[in-house]
């Protein structure tokens, strides 16, 4: 059954030499065509992620696009050029074929956009009632030069903090699609592959110390993690943080804070002060980077903390998200 599914359903879309061999694993000799054909393979970045979003489809995206871009981005955040993905599917018995096909087509389109290949896959079918339709796991691998180190522990006092665009879009779009809270915002998820943006930043010669995509827990959580990993203080300006007016309005209505809402097509870049200008320009010249902007800087104390200068000039401590964000009445 699995074999048939792969041959008749997945292969027509994920068609490539490697998958067609139908082996248990995808064996690849990584190559990218460059002017210098003697390309040193360099380091490999490998990541895996499972996607269980509900509902499966929402404005601006779906679980398929999320599964591809999420892992592409995780690999890209190490400064690596993502090349190959695997895709494992857990399908709920009774899932309509049309839905699965829609998801797969979306994955194909996202894979094409990101210029990666899906080279290995697996499917399992579980009983009705388990799996919310479909769960997808993707693992990804990319290469990066031996001497490139981009790591959450590498933020240094003096560095500049940039964000590639507006925050809160994905979380609000998914919440709206669930329908439980009954609002209409017109916000679309921002799911997008950011590997090209990362390469542009690196090729511009920017001295990049940290890259992170602020997914679950939002910008606040990612910045707090970095501050703790690097033992620095990150200071951001409330007025610099780009938020769409409708996202702000939805947050006001529900009592949410955009800083804590998930993003799936944005990256935080922490770069040396000297190269901030180049990094920003590279981001703005990249697809999905129109609203890229500086949001703050790194200082040495208080360690492990994120502070935000509010629009009123006061200082607020930013903590990590604890638990689920709940709409409040108070």
């Amino acid at each position: 059954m699995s074999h048939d599914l792969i041959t008749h359903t997945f292969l027509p879309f994920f068609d490539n030499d490697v998958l067609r061999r139908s082996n248990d694993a995808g064996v690849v000799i990584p190559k990218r065509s460059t002017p210098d054909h003697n390309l040193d393979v360099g380091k490999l970045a490998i990541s895996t992620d499972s996607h269980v979003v509900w509902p499966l489809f929402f404005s601006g995206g779906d679980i398929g696009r999320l599964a591809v871009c999420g892992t592409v981005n995780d690999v890209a955040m190490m400064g690596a050029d993502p090349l190959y993905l695997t895709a494992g599917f857990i399908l709920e018995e009774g899932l309509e074929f049309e839905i699965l096909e829609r998801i797969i087509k979306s994955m194909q389109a996202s894979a094409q956009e990101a210029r990666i290949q899906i080279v290995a896959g697996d499917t399992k079918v579980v009983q009705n009632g388990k799996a919310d339709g479909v769960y997808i796991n993707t693992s990804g691998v990319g290469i990066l030069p031996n001497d490139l180190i981009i790591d959450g522990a590498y933020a240094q006092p003096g560095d500049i903090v940039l964000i590639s665009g507006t925050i809160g879009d994905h979380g609000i779009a998914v919440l709206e699609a669930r329908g439980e809270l009954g609002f209409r915002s017109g916000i679309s998820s921002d799911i997008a592959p950011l590997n090209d943006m990362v390469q542009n930043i690196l090729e511009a010669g920017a001295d990049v110390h940290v890259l992170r995509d602020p997914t679950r827990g939002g910008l606040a959580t990612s910045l707090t993690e970095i501050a703790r990993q690097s033992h620095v203080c990150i200071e951001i300006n409330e007025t610099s943080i780009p938020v769409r007016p409708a996202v702000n309005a939805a947050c006001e209505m529900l009592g949410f804070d955009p800083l804590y809402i998930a993003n799936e097509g944005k990256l935080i870049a922490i770069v040396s002060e000297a190269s901030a200008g180049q990094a920003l320009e590279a981001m703005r010249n990249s697809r999905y980077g129109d609203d890229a902007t500086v949001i703050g800087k790194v200082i040495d104390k208080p360690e492990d903390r994120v502070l935000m200068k509010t629009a009123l000039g006061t200082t607020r401590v930013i903590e990590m998200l604890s638990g689920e964000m709940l709409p409040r009445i108070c």
Partner: protein
Amino acid sequence: MIKYLSEYRDVELVRVVIDEIKRTITQPWVMMEICGGQTHAIMRYGLDQLLPPEIELVHGPGCPVCVTSLELVDKALAIASQANVIFTSYGDMLRVPGSDQDLFSVRASGGDVRVVYSPLDAINIAQQNPDKEVIFFAIGFETTAPANAMSILQASSMNLMNFSVLVSHVRVPPAMHAILSSPLNRVQGFLAAGHVCTVMGYWEYVPISEQYQIPIVVTGFEPVDILQGILLTIQQLEQGLYEVDNAYTRLVTYNGNKPAQKVIQQTFTTCDRKWRGIGEIPSSGWCIRSEYASFDAEKRFNVEGIHPNESPLCIAGEILQGIKKPNQCSAYRISCTPENPLGATMVSSEGACAAYYRYSLEEI
């Protein structure tokens, strides 16, 4: 820009009011903001950093999530854990700890616990699930009472017999009496809750102001609104006045919203209520009138054997009355955090402990 919101966050106007406060004040004053939403705003915008040091803001028990009695939370948990039940609630109640679990853990164990934004959503769920018992956890101060009441009236007129309401309504005036009559009271001025007064008006506060000779100013929730409330209070204090004043005139009138008050009277009757951490305050609650007893979840679900067991470390009561600050609690930040709250003031994002934890600069 959200009209009627953004204007009251204007940096320039904030500066104007702050300057006027500084110009007016000549000595230290202690004032309390009753409403959790105001506490949240003060912390989120760092307003306490802008105010002159002579002003001490004490945070009051205006967090209905925080003051819902432990017994009622335990009852809610017992009902939610029953089979064939859909338990609906406002979001902030989900993480409130009962004696040994919370609604989140009931949900994780398979209970059907759903967050609703409006009580009418709970009515819809009851209509869509005629074979299940649907309970709505109706907490709140007077602000939420008109909405909660309407769900009972709707259920009644639709004959929605699978719907019932677990009520935990609390009223502000008795709480103010309790605070002001306490021998430990230090509060010299009150910022009354703007949205409570949108519903109830402010006629109820006049006798309180006179009895305790204390200024009470109806205050809103945006930075400019809160600062204006503080300014009007300081002006009275400096002049030795004690009156009820209104700093939230765009929404609040002396008489309040009459249709809403009528529905409240139709549906609820005053009763004694236990406030978590404080104890019983006479006539401080609203309960469902006998005419609508069939929709009262406390009567419909006979939950026996509730033995509330509060954490001995939690001093939420003293914090709610403004007697202590969160950082004076031995469990604060150590065994009591937003991820693992011992009491309700740490759970609700505008409970004083959670607000301090998340926003306060003093911590660093």
